[in-house]
């Protein structure tokens, strides 16, 4: 059991002040000089030793104060780092969200670009075809010309009909006149024949 506690003690002492310089040695020296001072006899030596011991003691107190301050400082640094760590985590999460947002925006922008390009492609094709107003105007003009020409055609046809009818009338009258003339000639021939036969009859 003594060995176990010895080990522990050694471990603890190594942990606290492993290199053996400074504080541990100072405390040992203090204890040794205290014992020596208790055992010493003379007044002046005792006084000087007493002074020396006080100074060692104050040195020890000073180094203890220093260590306490360092400990405080370490604690506060730790807190500071914790705070910074949390802030960085928050900003990482924020950045992740922004990245997701930006990805959505990029998809949206790509869709918009695609639509624009589709529009451009169609517009190019449409541009090849002539303007609708112009085509309508041309159609109207052509329609008017067509009407005009059909009017002319109608009037010409009417005139043709009229002429045809007139010629028909003329020709039929000529034909009738010819008929009448022929009839008259036949009648006069028959009368002459009758006259000739009447002349031969009264002679006997």
């Amino acid at each position, binding site marked *: 059991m003594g060995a176990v506690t010895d080990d522990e003690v050694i471990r603890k002492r190594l942990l606290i002040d492993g290199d053996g310089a400074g504080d541990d040695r100072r405390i040992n020296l203090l204890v040794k000089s205290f014992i020596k001072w208790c055992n010493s006899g003379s007044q002046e030596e005792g006084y000087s030793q007493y002074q020396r011991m006080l100074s060692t003691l104050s040195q020890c107190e000073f180094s203890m104060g220093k260590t306490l301050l360092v400990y405080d400082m370490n604690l506060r640094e730790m807190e500071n780092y914790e705070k910074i760590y949390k802030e960085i985590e928050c900003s990482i999460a924020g950045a992740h969200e922004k990245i997701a947002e930006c990805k959505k925006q990029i998809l949206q922008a790509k869709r918009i670009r695609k639509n624009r*390009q589709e529009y*451009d*492609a169609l517009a190019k*094709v449409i541009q090849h075809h002539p303007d609708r107003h112009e085509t309508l105007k041309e159609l109207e003009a052509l329609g008017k010309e067509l009407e005009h020409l059909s009017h002319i055609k109608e009037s010409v046809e009417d005139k043709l009909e009229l002429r045809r009818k007139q010629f028909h009338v003329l020709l039929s009258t000529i034909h009738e006149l010819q008929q009448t003339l022929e009839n008259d000639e036949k009648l006069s021939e028959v009368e002459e024949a009758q006259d000739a036969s009447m002349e031969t009859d009264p002679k006997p």
Partner: protein
Amino acid sequence: MRRHTSTLPFFSVFLEPPMGLHGQVLAAAKEAEVFQALQRLHMTIFSQSVSPCGKFLAAGNNYGQIAIFSLSAALSSEAKEESKKPVVTFQAHDGPVYSMVSTDRHLLSAGDGEVKAWLWVEMLKKGCKELWCRQPPYRTSLEVPEINALLLVPKENSLILAGGDCQLHTMDLETGTFTRVLRGHTDYIHCLALRERSPEVLSGGEDGAVRLWDLRTAKEVQTIEVYKHEECSRPHNGRWIGCLATDSDWMVCGGGPALTLWHLRSSTPTTIFPMRAPQKHVTFYQDLILSAGQGRCVNQWQLSGELKAQVPGSSPGLLSLSLNQQPAAPECKVLTAAGNSCRVDVFTNLGYRAFSLSF
């Protein structure tokens, strides 16, 4: 074979130097290696499909094998060389696997004349059997035309097959019966696309025409004869349409004629993409059009006709592109390209090729 000759000790003295058993095993192993290497040299990957969970990619090649790659393993930070090899490879068809498509539980693969279904969960364990195998009704029983394209129509839960017999067959996925046959093409069909808003199917084929079929009336609604338009026709390449993609109002098609963007309502070609090599696969992605074909690169085009980027892959020619947009696995969102080699290129960012998976 060497084992047989060595049982005749007399002849073996003349045929080859005497080898012990160890030597024979080594020789057989070497032959197998050489055979495998030759197979990989001549391999063409025709089709790819992503699993419904988004973590696996299936690739089908010209020997009829399907290999399943684990995308999540290959993309993870501790990926090694083995993660770029398939998790499982099996012989699916006797002939090449020309087309594959995934539903939410099955992988449908089509090759010479038949379409087979596999359960995704089953395939990841070795030694899986197909769930069913069907053949569409062909005109004569002597014909075994290849099925070049498969298309899923989720609204009516049916599958459309098209290929060498110049017809589109519709198969209902629940009952497995073939419901419609759409006839109109005069030569075999290469590719299909679905126009979602009005449920119409577009098909493009060797006869140079893109035909739109209305699924409800089973009739041909519109025909666009691409080779007849001067701006895009390239008679020296032929008139075949190798690839189709549609965005409801717009369609992009390519192949023999130049890759062109069409406005469907007015059937006019609006933009012609200046690419000399015939393209074999095209797809719309966000505001870009991705295309790949003869030539190493995956081309990215803007709708205005400008080439935004050309990213080289590792195969001398590309036959299929696949974009993994499954919502269940956003970390595996990659573009994979495969073609005339045994490798599947993986692009994590459209700007460069990250790595290649290999058969």
